[in-house]
């Protein structure tokens, strides 16, 4: 999974391989490991892309799913 913008600064990393069966399981695992990051990821302005497509709500994940957490985009 990938973190962009200020989320990567909050976490201290940009990319990690994490096992989770669903988006909600992934969020729980991240929050357990880093409460600050868990809170940052749950903000209403953070979007989630699975395999480079924006998504809402929960979603099952496979071993090859690429999950990205996207903070508000600044434009170029």
């Amino acid at each position, binding site marked *: 999974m*990938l973190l*962009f*913008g*200020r989320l990567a*600064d909050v976490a201290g990393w940009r990319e990690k391989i994490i096992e989770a069966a669903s988006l909600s399981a992934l969020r729980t695992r991240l929050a357990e490991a880093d409460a600050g990051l868990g809170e940052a990821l749950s903000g209403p302005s953070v979007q989630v*892309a699975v395999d*480079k497509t924006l998504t809402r709500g929960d979603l099952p994940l496979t071993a090859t799913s690429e999950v*990205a957490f*996207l*903070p*508000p*985009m*600044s*434009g*170029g």
Partner: protein
Amino acid sequence: MAVILQSEPFDPGQLLGSFCAGRRETGAVASFTGLARAEDGATMTLELEAYPGFTDAAIEDMAAAAAARFDLQDLLIVHRTGPIAPGEAIVFVATAASHRRAAFEACDHLMDWLKSRAPFWKKEHGPDGARWIEPTDRDRTDAGRWDEESKP
């Protein structure tokens, strides 16, 4: 039609020269070059983060829609990523059309979208440290102009 994300600096003049060359049925080429301002020394470096495969796909979708909406003959978008020094070009957009109104409006529209809605994350490294930038109200207003116009 081409959309290019690159970390290397580019020369807007060279891009415009190639874009204009050999056209016989194009009457109008509009271009826009966005440069990194020094802001009297306040900004040392700008850093743009993109999500490869996501950012370029979003820009390509937008470019295709603009090409159809404004009946463009061609367009080129080149966008820097990574650290950008003051005075360097950040973005270059060129649009080719039969007539100038379409070329101008398409270029303006693409820039409004790129500046406010394109999936980039922008960080300024200045003398007081680094900070992430979010779109300004002006950016949102500018991009919003086109939503109004596209209502039936």
